[in-house]
């Protein structure tokens, strides 16, 4: 999406990928190309704002993730020092099977 100079005049083209080829779509000259150019610029700015906003939200997630991971680490450590171990997602004591026999 860009203005291209042909001699003394400018024309606005949009590039589009169709399969392996990139084709140019003519949208307008110096006068008529201003509206599609403004629309594309607006779309790009909005996309960037959305991306920045999502990045902010994900930064907030990191804080909560850190806390949740610390709690899980603490809980699992307590289980380990209490003699339990995790086997295929289940927490159990090593001698449980023997004590049942």
């Amino acid at each position: 999406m860009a203005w291209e100079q042909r001699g003394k005049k400018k024309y606005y083209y949009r590039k589009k990928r169709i399969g392996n080829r990139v084709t140019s779509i003519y949208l307008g000259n110096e006068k008529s190309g201003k509206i599609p150019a403004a629309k594309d610029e607006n779309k790009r700015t909005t996309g960037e704002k959305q991306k920045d906003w999502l990045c902010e939200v994900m930064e907030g997630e990191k804080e909560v993730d850190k806390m949740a991971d610390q709690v899980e680490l603490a809980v699992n450590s307590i289980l380990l020092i209490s003699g339990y171990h995790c086997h295929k997602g289940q927490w159990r004591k090593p001698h449980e099977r023997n004590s049942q026999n």
Partner: protein
Amino acid sequence: MNEIVKTEVLDNDKERILQKFKELFKNVALDSPNPDQVEELKQFIQENQTIFRETYNLANMVVDNLLSLPETNLTFKAAIKESLKDIKNQYGYSYSSIIEKMVIDSIIVTWVRWQYLELIFTTTFFGKDFSIQSRKQYDQLLTSAHKRYLRSIDALVRIRKIGVNLQINVANNVGTQNVHQK
């Protein structure tokens, strides 16, 4: 200037302790852990009870931060605060051990964060021009927030099921550790 340096040194210490904790845990988290390494982890926890205290304080701080975010209005904050009381009663917060309280706080934080993300979804995305990519990313965020909430509940179930009662002195620097099992 000295205070800033001192704070940075303390933060680096906390990070170092946490890293060491993770390494020791990794060595022990096997099907047949080495008893010496288990003992080393036990010793480490005894010497660094600040880990539990820090996690306990961190949860409260995160909830306060979440409720002070600009997207949260007064109605949302009031509703969340009331719900937090109900959640604490439901899980028996007042008569739980310190470890269980820490886990219940984690449940509360992950629940509040999930509610906050749901609120943003309804106020920000509905009727607005967002790309499919952004919506997809946000949907993944919501899913992982919900999973995190369920993992916290699972942690509480684990602690209560095996009946471990670890005595940790949160108020003082010197603490004792007794593991009492039902």
